[in-house]
């Protein structure tokens, strides 16, 4: 593998709230290679979004990236970067796409304003040139009559179009990495298809790396090169898509796969993971999944490490192979 675009090691992002310390992300490691799409999967509250925001340095108080974490973009350490440098990186080298397309664009500013300001935030170019770039970006994501669309306000767009505008904004500076946080969850299947199509084409054509966050394994199954499964602030399994889907090693991953309804499940009970995600405020010692795990053993009271059980296929489970 060539040098990764992004390399995250031991990322720990904690929220210091009045109820206690919420360890939203607690020791996450992964790399993203150039042009690679990494699917980050996990149930609600498992820390996917926080991981994304951590990479962009957008954690608001009371949250903080804890000492000892490391996020490297092409070798540059971001956790130690100055605010100005971070600002320069955001939007230019790392871009982000948010979940809800209805909320990510400022409703009172025209689309051109929101695009031009992004161009000008990182490049000293004239308005006209910024506009030309913006137009080009809209064309790239397949928006028809871009000139007209530029002069419109977000509310005049459908959800799918808005999400495409958001992607266009992310593309303006040809970033090395795009963090897409559930960008299709709020959209229809047909529109989701369009967005997935754009994303795929993009990475293929421009070599941009992407982290695609979702809670729906099915979405990333056909898209991602590799999949990372998160649970309670940690990555519990990571590997090539085919490996993870077809030969999952962590019981949680298995549970997830089993709970996806499909043709084959018709008339049957879906497999379901019992119980709920434990509160991040008081995680039990050891494996945080043990209370819901069908195959938990005594050993699970100590935290397992993320171990490469097969080539390129890592899992954080004592019984990974046994399962």
């Amino acid at each position, binding site marked *: 593998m060539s040098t990764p675009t992004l390399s995250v090691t031991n990322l720990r992002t904690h929220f210091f709230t009045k109820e206690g310390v919420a360890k939203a992300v607690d020791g996450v490691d992964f790399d993203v290679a150039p042009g690679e799409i990494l699917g980050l999967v996990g149930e609600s509250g498992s820390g996917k979004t926080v991981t994304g925001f951590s990479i962009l340095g*957008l954690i608001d108080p009371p949250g903080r990236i804890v000492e000892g974490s490391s996020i490297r973009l092409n070798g540059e350490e971001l956790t130690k970067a100055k605010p100005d440098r971070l600002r320069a990186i955001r939007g230019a080298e790392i*871009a982000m796409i*948010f979940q809800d397309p209805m909320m990510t664009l400022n409703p009172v500013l*025209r689309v051109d304003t929101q695009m031009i300001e992004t161009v000008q*935030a990182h490049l000293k170019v004239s308005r006209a040139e910024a506009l030309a770039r913006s137009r080009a970006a809209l064309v790239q994501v397949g928006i028809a009559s871009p000139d007209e669309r530029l002069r419109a306000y977000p509310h*005049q767009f459908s959800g799918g179009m808005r999400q495409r505008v958001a992607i266009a904004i992310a593309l303006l500076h040809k970033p090395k990495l795009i963090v897409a946080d559930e960008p299709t969850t709020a959209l229809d299947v047909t529109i989701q298809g369009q967005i997935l199509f754009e994303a795929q084409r993009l990475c293929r054509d421009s070599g941009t790396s992407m982290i695609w966050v979702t809670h729906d394994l099915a979405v990333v199954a056909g898209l991602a090169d590799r999949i990372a499964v998160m649970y309670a602030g940690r990555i519990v399994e990571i590997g090539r898509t085919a490996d993870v889907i077809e030969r999952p090693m962590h019981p949680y991953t298995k549970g997830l796969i089993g709970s996806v309804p499909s043709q084959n499940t018709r008339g049957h009970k879906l497999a379901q993971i019992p119980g709920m995600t434990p509160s991040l405020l008081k995680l039990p010692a050891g494996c945080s999944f043990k209370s819901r795990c069908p195959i938990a053993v005594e050993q699970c009271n100590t935290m397992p490490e993320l171990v490469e059980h097969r080539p390129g296929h890592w899992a954080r489970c004592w019984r990974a192979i046994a399962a």
Partner: protein
Amino acid sequence: MLVYIIRRLMQAALVMVVMSALVFAGIFMIGDPVAMMISPDASDIERDAVRASLGLDKPLWLQYLAFVNAAVHGDFGKSFLAGQPAMQLIFERMPATLELVFFSTVIALALGLPMGVYAGLRPKSVGAKTIMTGSILGFSLPNFWVGLMLIMVFAVLLPDLIPGFPRLPASGRGATVNVLGVRLSLFTADGLLHLLLPALTLALYKGALIVRLARATAREVLPMDYVKFARAKGLSENRIVGVHVLKNIMIPIATVNGLEFGQSVAFAVITETVFAWPGMGKLLLDSILLLDRPVVVAYLMIIVVFFVVLNLLVDLLYSVLDPRVRLESRAT
């Protein structure tokens, strides 16, 4: 748009009819205008004559019908007290009130908006808490008290105590210039000086309101996804606060301020009384106390129209500020 205006005007007409009927009944219930105005030396016969000449001898509903009939033809009656068309009296006074309210709005915005946004950005800071506590005083101190205090302090005490402290005029309107046939004092130094204290009195309340509103909306807008997205785009903090946040804050501020503008115009009564400001609020107050019904009715008519126009402007402004709003759909 046209429909919208027409709908508004129809509602205004309705409100006017009800309002004038209420005023007729109300003044009738308060007392006898003639008893207020005529010389106490006058005999009953002379009083009856005056009543007849002012049309007050007829049954109330006849008086009202006569009024409506005349009003439809554009005649809103003559002031009992001044003998002049009530509308004319009010229009004479209107510029003074408008410029007072306008100036105070400017002051309130200039002071209130930055303070409110600051308090919204740093809600836990000492500065924010001071601002918020101060703003409570701003809208809870009675207007007349603030006005009189300002007069005492800036027109009397400070200049007396500190030699060389500029003495602000305590009352009345300063030199005026004629702008398109309207007398305005906004454009002369003397005029502005006279405006200062009364405008400040009015601005205190408004400013307090703006501070609170700005803070509240800032707190609502800041956690929005689009603010975070703006950060993710790498925009500078200045642009985020100054454009993305501020433009969203301006929507409620503009709406509320527009409506408050109307309220202030309508009820600048107290400030005008305290500062002997020759505006229409003072006219209204005097007219109410002297039961000068035509003026009160005409005044309220004007205010209704004024509110309608203002609402319209506010809605227009609203649709300019907030592109999501289409006027037709907000027709209430």
